[in-house]
């Protein structure tokens, strides 16, 4: 049997126990009928049992080799993922203040760089063009996108 990474299993166990406790507090039964907590309680119980079982099994078979990880990550990969995720989070907080056009331009610059584009000038020009085009295309489709600082 393939060995499992232990950390996610511990996480699942924790989640299962949390759901178990929380749903017990919600009430398993309501007036002789199944209450709001019953189903989550069963799910939490199952998740805890499965992860506990897998944890025990991986302790018993400790000698076997570890699970293969899909390929070694390339150099700088986590940095690029960080840039993309960071840009998305920043976008979520700033978009309504800055407006769709400005925020999207910055986001696209970050994404193009994160995806590995080299030329700065091309990246900036494409980003501006794409955000202008999408803004007008989608407001035309009656999707409300915040104008922010720039008012038209």
């Amino acid at each position, binding site marked *: *049997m393939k060995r499992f990474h232990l950390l996610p299993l511990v996480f699942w166990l924790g989640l299962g126990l949390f759901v178990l406790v929380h749903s017990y507090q919600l009430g398993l039964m309501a007036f002789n009928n199944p209450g709001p907590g019953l189903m989550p309680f069963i*799910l939490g119980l199952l*998740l805890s049992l499965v992860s506990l079982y897998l944890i025990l099994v991986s302790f018993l078979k400790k000698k076997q080799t570890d699970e293969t990880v899909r390929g070694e990550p390339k150099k700088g990969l986590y940095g690029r993922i960080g840039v993309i995720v960071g840009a998305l989070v920043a976008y979520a907080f700033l978009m309504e203040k800055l407006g769709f056009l400005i925020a999207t331009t910055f986001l696209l610059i970050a994404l193009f760089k994160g995806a590995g584009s080299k030329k700065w000038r091309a990246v900036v020009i494409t980003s501006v063009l794409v955000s202008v085009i999408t803004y007008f295309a*989608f407001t035309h*489709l009656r999707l409300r996108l915040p104008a922010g600082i720039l008012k038209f």
Partner: protein
Amino acid sequence: MELISGVLFGFKVALQPWNLLYCFIGVCIGTLIGVLPGIGPVGAMSILLPMTFGLSPATAIIMLAGIFYGAMYGGSTTSIMVNIPGEPSSVITCLDGYQMARKGRLGPALGISALGSFIGGTFSLIGLIFLVFILAQVALKFGPPEYFSLICVSMTLLIYLAKGSASKALIMILIGLMLGSVGIDKITGIARFDFGSSYLLDGIDFIPLAMGLFGISEVLMNLEETEERTIFQSKLRNLLPNVEDWKKSIGPILRGTVIGFFSGVLPGGGPVTATFISYTIEKKISSNPGQFGQGAIEGVAGPETANNAATGGSFVPVLALGIPPNVIMAFLLGALILHGVTPGPLLVSQHPQVFWGIIASMYIGNCMLLLLNLPLIGFWVKLLKIPYRILMPMIVLFCIIGSYGINNSLVDILMMTLFGVAGYILRKLDYEPAPLIVAYILGPMLEKSFRQSLVIADGRLSIFVERPISAVTLAISALILISAGISYFRKSKLKSREGGERRPG
């Protein structure tokens, strides 16, 4: 007679200019994302779902379904020409399709895959109509206990047929069910797992969840793969297979249709499984199996037919019972519900324009795809040259606009990013997010039918085994679990024995 008038009505719906246009857009997008390896049909459907809100339910589903079967056509093109499958369902086609192309038989390879797809797609639609009617008649007698058992059996099949480890699939299903239970309990009105947040009170939205788990996390996964694509340089001529090709292919195409259709109907099955089964069978019954992998046309015709036939088959459980057999159908079901249409046995009588419209549009869409893919194949191949570093920001941008567009809420973008990162980590650890989404969609149905059954039975669990249909269904799912357990036990025993033999040596 009812069937014939239904089909005619369907064509009347599907041939309305508006529906025709969206069907065309759908199959174009489908072919496009089939050709582009960076994004799959699930990702594309989740991006486009919010943009269908302004459309009528029939039009929206016609377009989304077009993406699904369009991707099956497009995926085979890249497999044959570049040896890179555009979709998981065309992985098998690489084996013989690319070899055929190398041997100068590019035209027949592309031709037979498009024609086989068309035949498979057409026949599976006929099967779809008949099976939906039979199933819907039976399903009218189903009460909550039967639905509960049916959902249980489809979940056990999801675990049994999961790509990787069964226990990981089980964990994903449990997590999906939990995510589905966040928000106000519909029966008692009590808030569950809301942590005082008004956003979670409404439950976790389907679109940010799906876009995160499929759109964003696929983008992050793809950052690693920057392989150079060398496109096969060859003149495209003689797209039509000759008589000998047809003689060889007709058997695989017919078998592929049947295999594909039924593996589509089965929960946990779908196009990918269909191609694997079809290839294995063709290789087994072939008079010279040595030809397979060297460019046997049978190895292209069978699987390519099967994956298209599976698209028709997988509509059966959704339209007749409202239970999605795989993740793409879970999406379509989610889309139908968002549009206020509840699929199930009453769908045909309550929303005939949706039911018949989809079926007729799938036939029309298949015809369009045949035209799009045979004469215009050179155009799609050119698109393969778009580098991923340009494609990726566009995919992310569409995800953002899509998830923002539902509620005009930035929290949705944040949730999508969160699920994107979660999906990336899960994929890295070999947890497939597909069962999670299916379980998330099925969760509320499962809970509702479970609680309703207990109310009917005054809290006795025995109701699930007292009703015959429910008892049989539950017995089937128990059998599946037991057989999975036995084969797992055997395998681990075999492995430990092998390990034991190896150690002394």
